[in-house]
């Protein structure tokens, strides 16, 4: 009897937690197809306003430009971060020495530096270099992160040393070994790192908000945020904009959920 009760409680908790988790996203999706009045009126069924809302959104905002800027930022951050951090993580582990461990410990300290504490000088540095409003300024601070280096160092730990020795005896150069041996065997780590970096860069708000002064370079998160300034908000259009901004990361999440989970927890295992 208590066993049955226990199971009932377990499933009840899961059903409630799942419904609460999914509801705001469901609301966002159906609201994108409804009029502003219907959204406020808590209409929970899909409507026929999707194209009207899309039309209004494109007329009010430069949606495609914002999507392009976000894509450019997210993709270039991901590619560069993966190269720089994978090479570094591999370097720390495979060639490890006391000096390198000391450097690693110093780098790990930066995990505790709040972004707030570096934001103002970063803004000044990039502005003085004439790089305000540039893609480079958006991505540079996000490329090298202790978290990703740690993730790659952890996975390099499981890279068999025999392979390394054998490849060296075969006369392969150190960089060739990294590219041809390490990268293919660590595919899952790269997937995990790519997913979290892409999602982080796509969703980033504060730094782009600071460094992209002119609206011509605005990202999709900045575009959504600008809605809050309006006195009369068309909620149907707003929810459509939020949906468009969320679709890429939601699709990546649903397909690569395991990689994402491994990415956020990987470095601490």
């Amino acid at each position, binding site marked *: 009897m208590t066993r049955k009760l226990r199971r009932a409680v377990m499933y009840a908790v899961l059903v409630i*937690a799942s419904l609460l*988790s999914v509801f705001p996203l469901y609301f966002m999706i159906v609201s994108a197809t409804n009029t502003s009045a219907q959204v406020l009126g808590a209409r929970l069924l899909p409507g026929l306003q999707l194209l009207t809302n899309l039309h209004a959104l494109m007329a009010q905002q430069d949606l495609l430009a914002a999507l392009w800027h976000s894509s450019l930022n997210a993709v270039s951050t991901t590619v560069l971060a993966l190269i720089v951090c994978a090479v570094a993580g591999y*370097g720390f582990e*495979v060639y490890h020495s006391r000096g390198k461990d000391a450097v690693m410990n110093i*780098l790990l300290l930066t995990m505790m530096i*709040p972004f707030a504490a570096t934001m103002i*000088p970063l803004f000044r540095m990039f502005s003085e270099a004439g790089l305000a409003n540039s893609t480079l300024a958006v991505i540079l601070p996000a490329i090298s992160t202790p978290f990703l280096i740690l993730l790659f160092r952890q996975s390099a730990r499981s890279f068999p040393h025999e392979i390394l020795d054998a490849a060296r005896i075969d006369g392969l150069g150190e960089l060739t070994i990294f590219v041809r041996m390490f990268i293919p065997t660590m595919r899952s780590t790269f997937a995990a790192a790519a997913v979290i970096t892409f999602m982080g860069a796509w969703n980033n708000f504060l730094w782009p908000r600071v460094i992209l002064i002119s609206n011509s370079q605005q990202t999709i998160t900045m575009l959504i945020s600008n809605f809050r300034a309006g006195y009369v908000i068309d909620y149907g259009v707003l929810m459509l904009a939020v949906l468009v901004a*969320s679709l890429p*990361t939601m699709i990546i999440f649903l397909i690569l959920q395991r990689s994402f989970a491994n990415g956020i*927890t990987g470095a601490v295992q």
Partner: protein
Amino acid sequence: MSTVRLTAKPSPATGRRIVGLEKRHSLTGWAFLTPAAVLIAVMSFYPMIQSFILSLHTGRGTVLHWASPIWYNYARLFQDQTFKLTIQNTFIYLVIQVPIMLIMALILATILNDKTLRFKGLWRTAIFLPCAVSLVSYSMVFRTLFATNGAINDALMGLHLIDSPINWLAQTGTARMVIILGLLWRWTGYNMVFYLAALQTIDYSTFEAARIDGANTVQTFFHVTVPQLRPMILLTAIMSTNGTLQLFDESWNLTQGGPANTSMTMSHYLYQLSFQSNPNIGYGSAVSYAILIMVAILAAIQMKVGDKRD
């Protein structure tokens, strides 16, 4: 063949060659980690030092000079009612939201770790899903849901729980509550995934053994699950604290800091000081250092408490 030669006792000549090789490998290693280390030095360490130097300056816009007395900005922090208010707001979020979230995440992870549970993937995906949307996106969704003439008020009035719509975002208590609800929604699944990962490394038989010994669910949870997850609980507590002290997107987009700054976070205030009308970056830098020091102190306290053995 070559392996045989390597395992043989090296002659003085080959010995020197191996030392030379090791030196070269060590240099390769340094070359490998240089780009990352330089970037972190330039993008984190250098600005952190600059920030401190800036915090000793006063002046508006780009015209800056050394403050006199040199600690002027820091003295001003203690007089600044708005800053005190944003500290208070941030700590309200921290003290209420983080414990509730971590306990909920622990309970959900424990349930999902049950071997007999069905549709495990489905529950996990659903509860983890909020992490797929950006902080700005969910802030706007919550803003819409909690609008005065919005869905939540309609539902509550439909159920006759309230007579007239509540202006959620225009009252201090409810505005803070909406931010806390938003944070709980966005981050519970995230922390649950950490606990699930940790639970999977624990031998499942310890849970079964506890049950066979007659422990009930609650006893097993407190005496078997929680102690084993202690390092992970410490880690998630530090991460959540760090994140809460840096909250910006929700304050900026969901409540706009209102009403009258009573839901504004420290980072939001910092942004306002440093980048909005007539910026005062010297004082902004002092605020940013105050945040840095709070993050460091709280992390140190948590590590001290978390390390304690029973």
